[in-house]
């Protein structure tokens, strides 16, 4: 929910240093923002996001906590608006403290003009409270580093000015300094914020150094989108549902969260004030889109008393995560109130997120969890103590859920496959590409380009031609020459994208001087196709004529198609035409 800050949710606090701090807003607690002070959670709960708050000073009367003040937009831009009309050369004169992020736009001029202009800004601001010299001194004592230097400079170097102006300027500077040093902006925690925060402030390795712009592009290339109930299910009534996305996610759940956000199952609708949730009602509603699940789920010998519907799995808009360890690492989902080990039944991910291990996918019989627990006649169960009975039902529900996930995944027909893993991609693709429907997109992220180059080569035009001309024995795949079936993916392409941020201040517009290096981030994409059976010829249309495909000017060209006679030289820049 993005309208108001709700109790007990995670929020992002953007600090004066531009660093992000993610905290949970627990009512009646104090939130510390390090050297910038602390504030009382209730002072931001129920307020809108994206506001900037200034931490007020502790007063004698409230020693424990300090208050907050909302900083208005006009206040935030007070200095900039002044400078708006100034030419670049003029602004260069304004003693800008270089390389000092907090205070670099202070109007600390050596000439009287600037001071007066600054003064005007103060007078215009009606919210300013009058301050005593004592207060200024107190604040000065509190300020550290460049902030204090500035104040010293102002109070010290402007002896020529009359007392009032110097005082006003100092006051102004103090307020601004304080604003820069002791303010924060509250941001909603969503996938963009989380990605930005982990990459820049937390542990980039946790998300494989996945950049925001890369993540955004991956979503498009995967054709990730919400699927409405009225869509035809995949596979012509096979009953496996639609809007199904297959993930190999070693980004601690960032891919899963991003997928969930883009298909609309990430956030739990929440009331501003926690209300007594009408569980039955909510359950009934959220099951509405899943009536199909019940009909094809495993027949249940008993209708167990429903504790919660963890066993009911969604039919539309689902995410299936295959993991290499016995449990998936989706820890980032906690920022969206979802704990994979102990899911809240009212969270959409509880039913829309399905996880299974590679063992469960490839050899389910070898996994105990896939083995059906013993069944007992109803009377026997009734005779049990409630503890044992509960245990029995829990075990069965767990098994039903796993069996349903495993069977459904093995049935294939997924709408897209997204991968971010350190594992050998050829082995991953060997087992997952066949699970995709025709036309589905494959999107693989890698922090470095090499693994993707290797995969592209397995789908190269030359290799595909060789494969078609002399296919390996059925069942012998993967072979040394063909680690992957090159006929299953079309138009393998590697993309990379990079965002370059600019500083945009009046008269001082330029790209940022430094940025994050190390991983560039690359994306491999390809389309799952269904090769026609039998021999395919493609000699192109050699008769020169205008073609009628609406391709206008390009129509008369003659281009040989992707499948070329073996032995044809594959150089000349089209070694990449693995389309």
């Amino acid at each position, binding site marked *: 929910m993005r309208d108001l800050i709700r109790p007990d949710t995670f929020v992002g606090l953007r600090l004066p240093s531009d660093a992000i701090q993610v905290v949970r807003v627990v009512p009646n607690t104090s939130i510390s923002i390090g050297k910038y002070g602390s504030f009382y959670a209730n002072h931001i709960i129920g307020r809108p996001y994206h506001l900037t708050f200034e931490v007020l000073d502790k007063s004698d009367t409230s020693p424990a906590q300090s208050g907050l003040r909302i900083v208005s937009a006009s206040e935030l831009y007070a200095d900039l608006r002044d400078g708006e009309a100034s030419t670049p050369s003029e602004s260069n004169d304004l003693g800008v403290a270089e390389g000092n992020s907090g205070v670099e736009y202070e109007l600390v001029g050596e000439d009287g003009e600037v001071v007066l202009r600054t003064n005007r800004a103060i007078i215009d601001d009606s919210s300013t409270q009058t301050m005593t010299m004592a207060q200024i001194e107190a604040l000065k004592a509190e300020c550290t580093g460049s902030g204090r230097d500035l104040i010293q400079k102002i109070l010290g170097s402007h002896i020529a000015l009359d007392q009032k102006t110097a005082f006003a300027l100092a006051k102004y500077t103090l307020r601004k300094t304080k604003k820069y040093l002791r303010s924060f902006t509250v941001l909603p925690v969503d996938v963009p914020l989380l990605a930005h925060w982990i990459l820049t402030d937390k542990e980039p390795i946790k998300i494989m150094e996945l950049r925001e712009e890369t993540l955004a592009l991956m979503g498009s*290339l995967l054709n990730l989108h919400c699927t409405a109930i009225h869509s035809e299910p995949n596979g012509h009534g096979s009953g496996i549902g639609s809007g199904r996305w297959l993930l190999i996610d070693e980004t601690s759940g960032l891919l899963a969260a991003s997928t969930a956000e883009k298909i609309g199952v990430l956030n739990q609708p929440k009331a501003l004030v926690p209300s007594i949730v009408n569980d039955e009602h909510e359950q009934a509603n959220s099951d509405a889109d899943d009536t199909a699940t019940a009909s094809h789920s495993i027949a249940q010998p008993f209708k167990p008393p429903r504790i919660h519907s963890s066993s009911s799995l969604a039919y539309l808009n689902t995410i299936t995560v295959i993991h290499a360890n016995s449990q998936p690492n989706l820890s980032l989902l906690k920022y969206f109130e979802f704990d994979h080990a102990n899911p809240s039944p009212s969270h959409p991910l509880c039913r829309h997120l399905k996880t299974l291990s590679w063992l469960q996918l490839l050899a389910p019989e070898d996994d105990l969890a896939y083995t059906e627990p013993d069944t007992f006649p109803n009377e026997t169960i009734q005779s049990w103590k409630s503890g044992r009975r509960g245990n029995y039902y829990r075990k069965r529900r767990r098994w039903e859920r796993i069996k349903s996930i495993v069977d459904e995944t093995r049935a294939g027909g997924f709408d897209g496959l997204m991968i971010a893993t350190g594992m050998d991609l050829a082995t991953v693709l060997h087992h997952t590409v066949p699970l995709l429907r025709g036309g589905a997109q494959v999107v693989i992220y890698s922090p470095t380009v090499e693994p993707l180059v290797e995969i592209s080569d397995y789908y190269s035009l030359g290799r595909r031609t060789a494969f078609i001309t002399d296919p390996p024995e059925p069942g012998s795949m993967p072979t040394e020459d063909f680690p992957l079936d090159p006929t299953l993916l079309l138009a393998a392409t590697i993309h990379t994208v990079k965002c370059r941020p600019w500083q945009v201040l009046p008269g001082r517009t330029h790209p940022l001087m430094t940025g994050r290096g190390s991983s560039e981030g690359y994306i491999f994409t390809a389309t799952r196709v269904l090769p026609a059976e039998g021999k395919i010829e493609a000699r192109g249309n050699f008769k020169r004529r205008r073609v009628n495909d609406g391709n206008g000017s390009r129509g008369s060209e003659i281009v040989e198609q992707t499948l070329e006679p073996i032995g044809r*030289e594959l150089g000349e820049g089209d070694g990449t035409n693995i389309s």
Partner: protein
Amino acid sequence: MATDSLPPSAPPRTSPFLTPGSHSSASSLSILHLRRDQHTPVILQPSSSPSDGYIEGPVTNTRFGSFPHSTLINQPWGSQIRASEVDTGSRGRKGWEGKGKKRKRGSDEIADEVRPETEEEVEGTRKAIKTSATGFVHILSPTPELWTSSLPHRTQVVYTPDYSYILHRLRARPGSVIIEAGAGSGSFTHAAARAVFDGYPALSIQDEGIQTNASAEPALPGKQNGKVYSFEFHEQRCTALQSEIKDHGLEGIVELTHRDVCTEGFTISNSPPIHASAIFLDLPAPWLALKHLTRRIRRKSLDPSANPEPTTPLTPNPVLHPSLPIHICTFSPCIEQVTRTISTLRSHGWLDISMVELSAKKIETRRERVGLQEEGLRGVNASAANVEEAVERLREVEGRTRWFHEMEARKEKEQEQERDGAEAKKDGEPDDMVKGEMEKENDTVNGKEKEKYTSKASRLASIASRLPTRKLYKEGRLVHRPEPELKMHTSYLVFAIFPREWSDEDEKEAERVWGGREAADRRGGVEEGGELGGSGGGRKEEKRMSKRQRRKEAKRRKDADGGKVEVDGEKTDVESRGN
């Protein structure tokens, strides 16, 4: 380029972009993949529709052959489809509507050919379509990416890396409402529609009782579906896009308005408020449109000629979502546009203004083969693979030169001797022996020595004969590099946020509900009525706090403090405030 210029059929109920189903279908858009980066969008026509005179029914011609739509309809997406033998000579006979130049060519060619006349005969012909060896296509379900790469360009368009990042930053998600101006060629429009789609609004009315909101949670009552409000002031572009929207089944999701947004703004009369939370402006002068995107506006008088009274009260702008933060992005190629836009954004109170530039590229991979074994092969630079090979070749050349020189020298010697011999003949016969020796020597050179230095022709021949058995796709070094054409600059992306409106009254109310500064003060031991820090307004508010609210507040604190606070001796529940 353009879709087939056949008469549009009944608009599809659903969009092949959003809910493509598993198979291609008649009257719906498909994308024919010809080869890498060459796509042809086609609206598949049922056989019964006018067919430009093809006896096979409607046909799409490509450089890889002709594809009767009957061979394309009802195919699983991703299928590889062979070209068919299409008798272009039959054009002009059946259902020939005649369209400009096509008619001319058609009538030239057909002349007196006799063609089946009856329906059955026509059907029979259609069934007997023979595959052709000219090539194949893959049939893909349309995606915004495929559309962007194949749409008819009427303007500059926003490409995939940019629109992905923009939609990500704008928080366009299932259920969001986004405004876009100008629509131009509709590239961004399609991507935006995919991002916000969460169900077909028309269907939700039709199938009442079924949950149409595709996400897990039922749509809140009165909540509208995700929607794109698109504006374009160029009439032809507007008309063209409108028909694409219809053909693509996006009518309920994209609402296109013919309008100059800079002068007339975004309000759509006689329709519910737009309530957008995301705005994308791809206009030459986006700053001119910003005045219509303020939180409050003066309502225009009904008489459009009358100037709005300056005294008319400001009312909430129905274009913007009243409670969500508004995210905006403007897209401008020039830095001057950026500067003006940002200055206007600031003056209207937009926050968090930032500007970035994206650079994206595709990366080619290829096998780079170097070595003398490549001599004479197309597109390969046949230079020595290593020093040894170079030396070997040098030796060979050296040897051949020496052999050549020796031969020359010998020839000279021969001639000399012949001359000498002629003279010597007169002197007797001893020269026969010399001659024989020389011949012997010559034989050795020709047979053994010369064999070592094979001729270029035979070397090339042996390279060519070895070629079919080589696995070129595995040879050489696997390398990668950017594609030949790079987009160095698309546009600058300016982002800003408008938080929800927050009045003093709102703040007071929030303070009352959640406890403002006072609550914190009380935690510090100061009770109601005590000396309070902060603003006086809050204190009055505190006194006005109803008994019920005080109880609630106390209860909250009690929970937090482990039940230390006693509240009027009554036990209270945390109630839902219902707001």
